């Protein structure tokens, strides 16, 4: 169990995180927020890479500063940029990460290590490219290898910062499924600004805005707060800009001269508007649209 106690992080005049307190139990936690909301700051503080200005991070009730190496032994981390070594093959890189994580270091554990590495490569669909140098990898492949290293050793706490960036839709689905299967008794924190990444697999979602935690709950709970605020309306396509200026819009589907709008508003925007089933994305748009407006 991970506990954040009044975490504040200030960079000179800017407050990146402002008094955030959270209790994170095992499961998949989505950390949602636009760029600059404080996600990476929070992730880096939880990963022990960044010192908070005030507050404390507790792992199973103990401050992570006191835990030190034993906390890191329980941690799998994928930062926004994993930074691979060009001259390592994927397999060599994972071997190096095993050495860094202190996994299978005893004599006679080589076979176990190789088996585990093969499993991780399979999980991220890199088996066929295991012995290629990483400098020949595409961005998506590098990202998948980064994910594989985070999963090495089946850590109890997995932190993934924008893990799907650079992945194609097929790989995103594959990763989502792999992470969902891993959850169990683990705590997985998945930071993203892409709602669809976590909407279907996250047990709980944390929404950050301007360094503050503005909402915490399951996707269904959060979306239910939007009941009666999401509308579907079909209008002539040329009037789209008028609605865009006055309402928060979700998907816009243009078909011929007509446009079907998904409008997020607390009142019915037009007599012909029909109430729609709210989703997490609608909440995201509403909350963060306010920021941009």
């Amino acid at each position, binding site marked *: 169990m991970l506990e954040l106690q009044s975490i504040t992080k200030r960079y000179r005049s800017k407050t990146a995180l402002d008094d955030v307190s959270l209790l994170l139990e095992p499961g998949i936690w989505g950390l949602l927020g636009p760029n600059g909301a404080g996600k990476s700051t929070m992730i*880096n503080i939880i*990963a*022990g*890479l*960044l*010192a908070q200005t005030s507050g404390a991070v507790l792992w199973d009730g103990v401050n992570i*500063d006191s835990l030190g*190496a034993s906390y*890191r*032994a329980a*941690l799998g*981390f*994928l*930062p926004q*940029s*994993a*930074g*691979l*070594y060009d*001259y390592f093959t994927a397999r060599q890189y994972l071997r*190096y*990460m095993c*050495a*860094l*994580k*202190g996994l299978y*270091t005893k004599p006679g554990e080589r076979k176990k290590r190789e088996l585990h590495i093969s499993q991780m490569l399979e999980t991220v669909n890199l088996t066929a490219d295991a012995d290629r140098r990483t400098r020949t990898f595409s961005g998506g492949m590098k990202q998948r290898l*980064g994910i594989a*290293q985070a999963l090495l050793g089946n850590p109890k706490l997995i*932190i993934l910062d924008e893990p799907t960036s650079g992945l194609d839709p097929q790989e995103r689905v594959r990763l989502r499924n792999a992470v969902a299967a891993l959850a169990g008794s683990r705590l997985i924190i998945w930071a993203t600004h892409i709602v669809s990444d976590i909407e279907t697999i996250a047990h709980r979602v944390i929404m950050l805005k301007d360094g503050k935690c503005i909402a915490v709950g399951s996707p269904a709970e959060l979306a239910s707060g939007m009941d009666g605020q999401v509308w579907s309306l079909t209008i002539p396509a040329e009037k789209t800009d008028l609605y865009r200026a006055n309402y928060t819009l979700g998907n816009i589907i243009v078909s011929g001269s007509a446009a079907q709008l998904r409008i997020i508003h607390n009142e019915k925007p037009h007599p012909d508007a029909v109430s729609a089933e709210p989703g997490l994305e609608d909440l995201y748009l509403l909350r963060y649209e306010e920021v941009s407006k």
Partner: protein
Amino acid sequence: MKLLAYELRKMLVGRFWIAALLTLIAASAVLFAQPWRLQSIGEINQTARQNSGFKPLYDFLSSASKDELDEYLSETGFSLDADAWEVSGLPLPNAGGSGRFLETVEGEFQVLQAYLPRYQRTYPQVIKSREDIVEMARYLGGSAYAEGDLYNTRLNLDIIRRYSEQPPLLLALSDGENDTPAFSVYFLTGWQSFFDFIWGDIFALILTLLVTARIFSLEKRSGSVLKSTLRGRKDTAAAKLFSACLVGGVFSLLFSALSFMMALLMYGMDGASSSILSLTPMMDTSPLTCTIGEAAWFFTFYKAFGAMCFALICAVFSCFLRSALTSYVAGSVLLGASLCWYYFLMPRASVPMVFRLLPDVTLWTRPVWMFSNYRVANIFNYPLLWVWLCLIFWLAVATLLFFAALRYWAARRLA
């Protein structure tokens, strides 16, 4: 060990390093050989021993007893000031190349001549000057003792102890009293060249700088992952620092080995059992009494230690500055400033030794100078040779930097 191996691999992988190493090895070999001094490049492969014309003289001088040598010298009328060499008694090469990188046959004699006057003139002087040093130390030590001057008493006792010891080759000269041991003549040009050649060490430092000044900054993108792992902090930092030291030491040994090979091929390396005092006049008053061979090992490891310290400093720059470019600049400034420091301050005897020596990270490349004289500092009323003080100083600096870098890298700080 595994982390160390990985760090070495990360540090050294790539064709650039092989190219840089080969380029500097070639440059070092060229500067050692100075082929522009050759009459013919074809002479490079000839060694002193291959020069059949000179060999009989060489063999004779190598095995001659003192009496035989005296007789030979008087017969040959060997003179330092002669415009042309006139030698009788033994066949001498009178045509063709010298067989070494010396321009003419005359060069052979210039090399050979370096011993003969030393035998005739310098060795007795060496013995006499050492005796004088001891005598003076007895006198000054006695006065200091009478005045209760503890430091100067200890200082003079130390001088007496060091300078009373007979050096290996000089023992052979004290014939008449003992069993008249045979006097050996060796070509020391090879050793002299080996000890004098500084460029190999400078190149080793340059290569060390190039390799180690990026050791932490190459983790700019991967540092977050590393630091989130069990062994990614202190263990990894220690592995990086140790591997930097290892690389610095190995480069230094490599370039020393290259210099040795070049000297061996060009001049031969006879006389390893001679006293280090016979190497150059500069060593006449050296506190060392070991043989040239022993000194060669000692100086080589001494230089390697210096390269390891320099490597560690460059690695620490990389850790603190977090950018390869700034680390390279800092390392280059340190290396360049040290060399300038040496050339600017070393001739100024009025500048205290503490300022002349301690800030100079390249002093390790000049062991002959460092050991050429009895230079001591007063450390809590005990005399300590500056050469050991420098070693202790840099060891302390290296240890301090090692732990500072370890602490810095292990702190909660983004890479």
